[in-house]
C-alpha cells in the first residue's frame, strides 16, 4: 500500500483552492464568506499538517514525488515533496500562525470593499500556498519556486493599497532586492547541478553528493547565503523589510515576521550538511548575522513608528538566528524561528490592534496611556515584550538562551568572547527598545487628538482571540526545548530534528550555563527598570547628533541610492539619449547618408559634354591597357 504521505499534496492544495475561489469570485463573494473560505482552507491544511507532523513523529518521513517537472538530457527535476521533521515543524508554524492571522485579518480588514477584501484573502492564501511549497519542496527547484512565490506575494501585499505610490515603490524595492538574492541562489543551484547533476536534497546531501560538492562548498554556500540575506533581510539586503511595513499589519505579522523572512533560515538549516563543510562560510554567516542584529537593534532604538520598531526588531532577531546558524546551532535557530513566530506575530497583531484603535495612527509619539482602554492588547503585548526580551520562563528565554550559549561555546573555541558579548549587548538593546515602545505606547498620558481619544476602543473578539492564543503560545512555547540543565530530556526539539540536523556541540559545564543565564537575566531586568524610569512620563523631543543618525537608519538607503541606483540610472540615461541615438543608430543612418552624398557627387561625372565623355572613355581604356600589359603579371 502506498505511503500516506502521498496525500501531503493536499496541504498546499487547499490554500491554492482558496486562492482561486476568493480570487476569481471576488465580485460575488460577500465579506464573511470570503473570510470563512480564506481562513477555512488554512485551517484544513493546519489540521493536515498536524496529522503529517504526527506521522513524522512516528518516523514515517520521506520524499514523495508526483511528476517530472523538467526532464531534459541527463537532468531530471521531479515535482516532489520532502516530508521530514524540519518541514513538518515549519508546516505547523506556517499553517498555525497563518490561520490565526487569517482570522485576525477577517476583522482587521473589514472596512475594505468586498472586491479588495477578497483580493486580500486570495493573496494571503496564495502566500501560504507558496510558503508551503517552499518548505515542502523535495529539491532546490521546488524550493525556489516557493521562494519566488512568497516574494511575489509579499510584493502584491506590500503594494496592496496600490493607489499609494509610496507603497508601490516599497513593494518594488522588496521584490527587486529579493531578486538580487534569488540570482545568487539560482547560480548556486546551477553549480550544484553542474557538480552533482541533480537538485534533489536526497542526492545533494548524500555522502557522495557532498563529497562531489566539497571542493566548491564555500562558494556554493556563500551564494546560498546571499540568497538567504535577500529573503531574510540581512546585511546588505535588509533595507526592504522596514519599508515593507507599508502593507496591512496582519501581512507584516505573517509574512514579514513569522514566516517568509525565516525562509532563509529554513533553507540554510535544510542544507546544514553542506554548510558544515565550509568553516569560512559559517563564520561569515555568524558575523553577518551578528552585525545585522546589532545594527537593526541600534536603529530600532530611535524609531517612532510602532511598526518600524517591530520591523527592525524582526531584522535583529533574524540576525540572531543567522548567528545561531553560523555557529552551527541549527536546532537553536529553528527553535528561535518558532518562538519568534509566536511572539513577533503577537506583537505585530498587537500593534495592529493599537493602530486599529487609533484609527490608522502609527506614530507612538501621539499615543500613550492606552493600557486603560486596550486591556487585552496591553497584556498580550506585554507578554510579547517579555518573551522577546527573554524573561524566563517565556518562550524567548529558552530559544535566545540556546543561541547565546551556542555563541559562547563557539567563542570558547576561539578563546575570545566577541560573539557572546555582542549578542548579549544586543539582547539588552532589544529589551530597551521593546520596553521603550511598550511604555511610550501604553503608559503615561494620551498625546493624540481629541476624536482619536474618544474613538479609542478595544478591538473585536475576532482580533483579540488570536492575540490571546498567540500570547499563550509565546508564554509557553519555549517548553518544548527546556535546556537539559533544568530537566533531563526536557529538550524535545533536538532529538526530533536529529534526523535532519547534525548536532555537533559538546555541552559546557552546568555551572557556566547557569552563570550565563543568570547574567543575562539580571542584565535584562536591570535594563527594563532603567527603561521604565526613562520613559515613564515621556515627552516627544527632537533627536540630534548620534540619535539623528540612528533615527535615519544610519543613512543606509541614501548610501545605496548614491553608490548604486543613481550611477546606474545615469548610465542608462547616457546610453539611451546619446549612445543609442548617435552611435548605434547614427552609424546605420550614416551609411544611408553616405550613399546619398556619393550619389550626388558621382552624378556630376555625367557632365553632359560629349568631349568629356570621350576623354573619360579614352583615359579608362588607357588605364585598363596599362593594367593588362604592364601592371598585371
Amino acid at each position, binding site marked *: 500500500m502506498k505511503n500516506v504521505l502521498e496525500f501531503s499534496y493536499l496541504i498546499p492544495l487547499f490554500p491554492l483552492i482558496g486562492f482561486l475561489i476568493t480570487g476569481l469570485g471576488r465580485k460575488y463573494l460577500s465579506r464573511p464568506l470570503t473570510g470563512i473560505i480564506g481562513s477555512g482552507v488554512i485551517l484544513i491544511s493546519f489540521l493536515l499538517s498536524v496529522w503529517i507532523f504526527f506521522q513524522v513523529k512516528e518516523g514515517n518521513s520521506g520524499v514523495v514525488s508526483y511528476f517530472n517537472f523538467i526532464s531534459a538530457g541527463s537532468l531530471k527535476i521531479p515535482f516532489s515533496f520532502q516530508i521530514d521533521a524540519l518541514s513538518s515543524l515549519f508546516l505547523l508554524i506556517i499553517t498555525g500562525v497563518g490561520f490565526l492571522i487569517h482570522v485576525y485579518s477577517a476583522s482587521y480588514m473589514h472596512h475594505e470593499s468586498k472586491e479588495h477584501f477578497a483580493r486580500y484573502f486570495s493573496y494571503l492564501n496564495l502566500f501560504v500556498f507558496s510558503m508551503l511549497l517552499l518548505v515542502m519542496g523535495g529539491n532546490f527547484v521546488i524550493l525556489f519556486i516557493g521562494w519566488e512565490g512568497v516574494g511575489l506575494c509579499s510584493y502584491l501585499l506590500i503594494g496592496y493599497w496600490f493607489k499609494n505610490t509610496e507603497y508601490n515603490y516599497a513593494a518594488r524595492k522588496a521584490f527587486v532586492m529579493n531578486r538580487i538574492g534569488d540570482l545568487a541562489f539560482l547560480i548556486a543551484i546551477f553549480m550544484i547541478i553542474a557538480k552533482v547533476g541533480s537538485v534533489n536534497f536526497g542526492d545533494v546531501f548524500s555522502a557522495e553528493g557532498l563529497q562531489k560538492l566539497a571542493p566548491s562548498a564555500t562558494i556554493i554556500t556563500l551564494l546560498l547565503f546571499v540568497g538567504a540575506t535577500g529573503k531574510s533581510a540581512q546585511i546588505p539586503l535588509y533595507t526592504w523589510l522596514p519599508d515593507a511595513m507599508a502593507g496591512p499589519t496582519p501581512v507584516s505579522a505573517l509574512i514579514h515576521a513569522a514566516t517568509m523572512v525565516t525562509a532563509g533560515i529554513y533553507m540554510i538549516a535544510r542544507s546544514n550538511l553542506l554548510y558544515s563543510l565550509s568553516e569560512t562560510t559559517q563564520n561569515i554567516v555568524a558575523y553577518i548575522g551578528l552585525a545585522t542584529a546589532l545594527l537593526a537593534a541600534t536603529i530600532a532604538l530611535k524609531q517612532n513608528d510602532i511598526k518600524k520598531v517591530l520591523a527592525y526588531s524582526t531584522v535583529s532577531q533574524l540576525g540572531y538566528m543567522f548567528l545561531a546558524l553560523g555557529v552551527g546551532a541549527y536546532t537553536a535557530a529553528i527553535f528561535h524561528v518558532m518562538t519568534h513566530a509566536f511572539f513577533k506575530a503577537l506583537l505585530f497583531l498587537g500593534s495592529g490592534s493599537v493602530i486599529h484603535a487609533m484609527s490608522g495612527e502609527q506614530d507612538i509619539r501621539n499615543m500613550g496611556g492606552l493600557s486603560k482602554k486596550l486591556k487585552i492588547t496591553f497584556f498580550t503585548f506585554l507578554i510579547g515584550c517579555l518573551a522577546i526580551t527573554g524573561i524566563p520562563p517565556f518562550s524567548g528565554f529558552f530559544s535566545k538562551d540556546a543561541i547565546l550559549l551556542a555563541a559562547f561555546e563557539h567563542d570558547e573555541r576561539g578563546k575570545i568572547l566577541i560573539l557572546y558579548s555582542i549578542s548579549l549587548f544586543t539582547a539588552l538593546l532589544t529589551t530597551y527598545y521593546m520596553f521603550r515602545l511598550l511604555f511610550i505606547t501604553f503608559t503615561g498620558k494620551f498625546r493624540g487628538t481629541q476624536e482619536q481619544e474618544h474613538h479609542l476602543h478595544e478591538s473585536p473578539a475576532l482580533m483579540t482571540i488570536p492575540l490571546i492564543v498567540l500570547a499563550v503560545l509565546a508564554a509557553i512555547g519555549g517548553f518544548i526545548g527546556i535546556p537539559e540543565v533544568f530537566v533531563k530530556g526536557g529538550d524535545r526539539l533536538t532529538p526530533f530534528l536529529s534526523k535532519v540536523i547534525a548536532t555537533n556541540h559538546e555541552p559546557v559545564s552546568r555551572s557556566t550555563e547557569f552563570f550565563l543565564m543568570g547574567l543575562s537575566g539580571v542584565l535584562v531586568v536591570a535594563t527594563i527598570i532603567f527603561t521604565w524610569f526613562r520613559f515613564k512620563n515621556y515627552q516627544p523631543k527632537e533627536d540630534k547628533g548620534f540619535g539623528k543618525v540612528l533615527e535615519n537608519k544610519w543613512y543606509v538607503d541614501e548610501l545605496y541610492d548614491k553608490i548604486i541606483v543613481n550611477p546606474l540610472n545615469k548610465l542608462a540615461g547616457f546610453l539611451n539619449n546619446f549612445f543609442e541615438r548617435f552611435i548605434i543608430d547614427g552609424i546605420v543612418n550614416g551609411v544611408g547618408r553616405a550613399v546619398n552624398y556619393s550619389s550626388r557627387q558621382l*552624378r*556630376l561625372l555625367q*557632365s*553632359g*559634354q*560629349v*568631349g568629356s565623355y*570621350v*576623354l573619360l572613355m*579614352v583615359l579608362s581604356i588607357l588605364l585598363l591597357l596599362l593594367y593588362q600589359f604592364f601592371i598585371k603579371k
Partner: protein
Amino acid sequence: MQIDYYIYISLALFCIGIVGVLTRRNAIIIFMCIELMLNAVNLLLVAFSKMHHLKNAAVNASAGSDGQLFVFFIMVVAAAEVSVGLAIIVMMYRNIHSVDINFLNRLKH
C-alpha cells in the same frame, strides 16, 4: 615591307583620329576624325591580309582575301553611317543653328 611599320602607321593615324575627336568641338570635324580612324583600320587590314597571303599562299591561293573584303564592308558601313550621321547633324543644325557639341548640354547628371 615589314608589317610592324604598317601597324605603327595605322595606329598613329588611329590615335590622331582619337585626338581629333577629343580636341575639336565641331560635330562635323569630329565625325571626320572618326572616318580617319576607320581608314587607319582599313590600311592595317589590307596590310594584314597581304601578310597572311604571303604566309599561306602555298596552302590556299585566296588566303588573306577576306581581310580586303572586310575593308569593303567597312566602307559600306561607313557610307551608311555618313548618310545617317550627316542627316542627324543637319537636323541638329536646323534646330539650334550650330554644330558645336558644347551646346549639347540639356541632358546631364
